[in-house]
């Protein structure tokens, strides 16, 4: 104790040493801040968590048959079968897996077409498995994609992990807004190409239907009416023949459901020889309609055949036409690939469009405004998805942090009736940021994956503010009573106070560190744990070395001997 007291006193007494401590603190502070731009510490909203399950979404292009989808799915399953850690896997063709949190916002419940399939994979318990689910996905993704994507052209395979926090549509979402459908489609496709080339982004998908060839049967109205038929009849027979229809029901006492009676053409009868209009025409010619006179009329007689392009779905968001391009991140924070891709896009679209950035700072600050150089049409590239949620969350947490600062400041001003003393305490606690940042850098060394600065780290930092302000608070309180009640000189009083308070400060710090130690091992709350541990360590040093200097320099710390207030006589306990 005596040693520490003399050490502090020594620093306070010499201007050089004082300056050295202040400079060191300032250097440490700015050096730690520099860890962000130099990417030594990476930021992300929430890290991945190892789970006992993941799912795979398979989308063959719009207009594909269920058999084609199944072929791709079987290929994926063949790979999964080789995995030792997979307990069971389920394939759902033409529909989504039973809804989960990830599927909730990804529109899994809307799936009901032949070109979709989902595979749900259940792994062995994560406690007894060496490989976390996210590493397994990272390992399997390229292998499976390479083998299975070429089976059906333009197929998309996405690996979906359970979100650690609230679910988002995708890590990176580019919304292409614009009025001209062809143009936004083109921009969306080009953006997806850029995202595909960006390092760290995987599972890129344009959320728009692929355009495929289809045939339009145009009814010849005159021929139809002259043959004694009706257009409705033509439509019905066509549907009946190829899709089939439930024509009647049978109720049954010993069956749980009604038994439908389903009428359709035989499989062999309705199969076309090939995918061209001659085959379709010959098929239609063998399909007869009976008119009112009881005469058979071949279907091909009353309709024209026309080859057209399919109509893709039109998407709106908040009343504007839009196409989404989505991408997932591959074990990295979405911030950095996003900035890369954005730079690439600005360069790419420069040729045809005037590219403008979003003015001002808000949570849409990465948006790009494109204006066509010839027609003047405007297109908006908006970044949404996890990035937007991250920015919103960090903005709100930042706001909460500032609010917390103001509240503490006001509380201290009420307690001390001095702005300077309150300021010292706030500054002291703010410096625990050094520890938080450096702590993440150190944690990154010890973990095999990147240790991100996350939203929970921020929560930890906010909580730290309160904790470290208490250290300084007790210190000031103590020194004040020493000076007031015992008439100790200022410097000696500060040194004594620091030395005596060192024990409880260290004690509570150790309690916090031990308390957070188990937090640090959790994937989601690891940030909070690390922030608390390293921040507390920094806070101890700041309050024992840096705060005394500030106290010594502050005029507000000059207390008179005779003003001893018996209410604050906790000094007597040390004697």
């Amino acid at each position: 104790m005596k040693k520490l007291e003399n050490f502090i006193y020594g620093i306070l007494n010499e201007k050089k040493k004082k300056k050295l401590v202040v400079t060191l603190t300032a250097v440490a502070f700015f050096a730690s801040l520099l860890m962000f731009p130099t990417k030594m510490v990476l930021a992300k909203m929430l890290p991945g968590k190892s789970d006992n399950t993941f799912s795979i979404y398979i989308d063959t292009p719009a207009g594909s048959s269920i058999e084609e989808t199944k072929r791709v799915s079987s290929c994926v399953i063949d790979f999964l079968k080789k995995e030792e850690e997979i307990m069971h896997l389920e394939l759902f063709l033409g529909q989504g897996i039973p809804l989960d949190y990830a599927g909730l916002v990804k529109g899994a419940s809307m799936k009901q077409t032949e070109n979709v399939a989902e595979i749900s994979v259940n792994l062995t318990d994560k406690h007894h498995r060496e490989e976390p689910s996210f590493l397994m996905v990272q390992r399997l993704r390229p292998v499976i994609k390479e083998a299975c994507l070429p089976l059906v052209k333009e197929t998309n395979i996405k690996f979906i992990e359970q979100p650690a926090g609230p679910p988002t549509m995708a890590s990176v979402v580019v919304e292409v807004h614009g009025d001209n459908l062809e143009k936004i489609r083109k921009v969306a496709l080009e953006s997806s190409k850029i995202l595909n080339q960006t390092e760290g982004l995987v599972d890129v998908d344009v959320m728009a239907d692929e355009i495929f060839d289809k045939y339009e049967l145009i009814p010849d109205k005159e021929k139809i009416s002259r043959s004694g038929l009706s257009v409705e009849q033509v439509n019905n027979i066509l549907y009946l023949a190829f899709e089939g229809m439930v024509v009647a029901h049978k109720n049954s006492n010993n069956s749980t459901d009604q038994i439908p009676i389903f009428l359709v053409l035989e499989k062999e009868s309705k199969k076309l020889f090939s995918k061209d209009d001659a085959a379709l025409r010959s098929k239609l010619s063998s399909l007869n309609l009976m008119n009112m006179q009881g005469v058979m009329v071949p279907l091909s007689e009353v309709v024209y055949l026309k080859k057209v392009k399919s109509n893709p779905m039109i998407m709106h968001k908040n009343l504007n036409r839009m196409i989404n391009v989505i991408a997932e991140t591959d074990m990295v924070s979405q911030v950095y690939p996003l900035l890369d891709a954005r730079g690439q896009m600005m360069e790419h679209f420069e040729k045809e469009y005037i590219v403008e950035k979003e003015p001002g700072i808000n949570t849409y600050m990465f948006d790009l405004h494109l204006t066509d150089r010839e027609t003047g049409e405007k297109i908006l590239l908006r970044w949404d998805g996890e990035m937007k949620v991250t920015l919103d969350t960090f903005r709100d947490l930042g706001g909460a942090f500032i609010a917390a600062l103001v509240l503490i400041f006001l509380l201290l001003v009420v307690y001390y009736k001095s702005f300077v003393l309150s300021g010292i305490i706030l500054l002291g606690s703010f410096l625990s940021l050094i520890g938080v940042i450096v702590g993440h850098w150190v944690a990154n060394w010890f973990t095999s994956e990147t240790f991100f600065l996350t939203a929970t780290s921020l929560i930890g930092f906010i909580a730290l503010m309160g904790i470290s302000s208490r250290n300084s608070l007790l210190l000031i309180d103590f020194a004040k009573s020493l000076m007031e009640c015992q008439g100790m000189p200022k410097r000696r009083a500060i040194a004594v106070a620091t030395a005596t308070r060192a024990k409880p400060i260290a004690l509570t710090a150790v309690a916090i560190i031990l308390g957070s130690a188990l937090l640090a091992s959790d994937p989601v709350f690891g940030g909070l744990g690390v922030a608390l541990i390293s921040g507390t360590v920094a806070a101890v040093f700041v309050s024992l070395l840096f705060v005394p200097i500030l106290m010594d320099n502050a005029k507000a710390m000059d207390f008179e001997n005779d003003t001893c207030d018996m209410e604050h006589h906790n000094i007597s306990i040390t004697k």
Partner: protein
Amino acid sequence: MQTTNKKEYQVTDVAGKLAKGFLRNPLTAVLGAFLILMGYLALNIMPREEDPQIAISGGAVIVPMPGASPKEIENVIINPLERKLREVSGIEHIHGMAMDNVGVVNVMYYIGEDREDSNLKLYDKVMQNMDQLPKGTMQPIVKPFDIDIDIPIVTIAFYPKPKSGLSEVELFKIVREVQQKLNSVNNVAKTTLKGARKAQYNIEVDMGKLSAYHLSLGQIMKAVQSVAVNVPDVKGRTQQNTLVVFGVKNAIENVDDVGNVMVAQYMGSPIYLKDVAKVTEGIDIQNFQTAEILHKNAKEEQFGESAKQVTLTVAKLAGTNAVFVADDVMDVLKSYEARFEKEGMGYLVTRNYGTRANEAVNELMHHLIITIIIIAVMLVFALGWKESIIVTFTVPAILAITLFVAYLSGQTINRITLFAFLLSLGLLVDAAIIVIENIHRHLHAHDVESKEMDELLVEATDEIGAPTNVATLAIIMTMVPMAFVGGMMGSFMQPIPYNVPVALIASLFVAYIFTPYLSLKLLKKPKHKDHHKEEVHS
């Protein structure tokens, strides 16, 4: 309580008042036991879940318009509907989708909007504007999202065992029975089947034969429809006015009856349906939504053949305990096991959020206990074992109060609640440590002989009252603004700003009430004055 010959210590802070009031009160021990009991009860009763519930409300309006192209749908359905929905307050995003034959508008409300109100508002707005619906559209369908009911907590895959010969239809029948039983389980909300294949009579017409007999598909449809009718019984009266009830039996009893439907007469001889078509009793062939499962057999390392399966999903009602519901569901399944064995079918539980929630909660409880023990051990070295016991007791008491308050305010035990506890653990021992350290110091002070134990304890507690209050208040103030963080992340993190301040306030009260009380029971004044190491002072 105070000795008369000495100057009475003036209690100045709430801390001292509490300490004084409870120090000799026989009810203090009862209060302590009561608090811990309440906490224990809350821990067992409170609904457990893995992640906290986020109030997401929204819904979809589906307007079918057969035969319309996406652009037509966009113009006549999506655009006017979106404009109308703009009038509803609280909607964050509107997503419109114009497809062939159907228009869908999804609305997402701001996080935290009341779910029932939101659903009502959406339905109301659509119904108000029914008159403006374009001609040719069908009745719009309004489907609200309901996370609790939409996300199943248990999914079970039923599959026929290899070589059992159980058909898909029979499998479906049994699963349907199980579904009926599961729906009767307490707090089970929605159950659905995925991959189910239903029984169906299939008439597959051979096009060649059709033209050979000079028939059209329309004739066949009419022929079947005319036979498969159900009519209610008719009542006839006798001359004595008694009732005679008779009815026409459904002409189709089994699949053979369908095959024997006469379609037409050709050259005088009847043509039956079975002559031109393959009539079979089978499954719904038009349904392409199938499900398969692959699993490892108990002893084998390799995956077996993929089997057709039916997945039964079970969701629970909001605010109920996932653990209990899942357990009840498992019990029902167990009761069916013998039947499954007989029929040759197996089942696998492919999702169980009940056990997941329970495991997550138990794991964190485990962490919590380890952390408490670590802190207790540290305090033994720093303060002595009796003091350590006192501080360690305060932790369960504080957590019990916090849990009980959380229970009363309708929260659930989930990962985030427990993280809030872990986070506050490091903070909430502080108050007790500060009090016990001050008591410790007083006990080893020079003037210890001159003071009564009671007075000393109250004085020691009271002295540190003011700074401790301010420091704790400072930490609470950092937590409060976090409650106003918006969006999904805000709701997700909500248990932290709700529970940490409660725990901190509880820590103050427990420290002021129980620390002096327990010190009175456990700590003794040292027999002779000795300078403790920490007391060495300049």
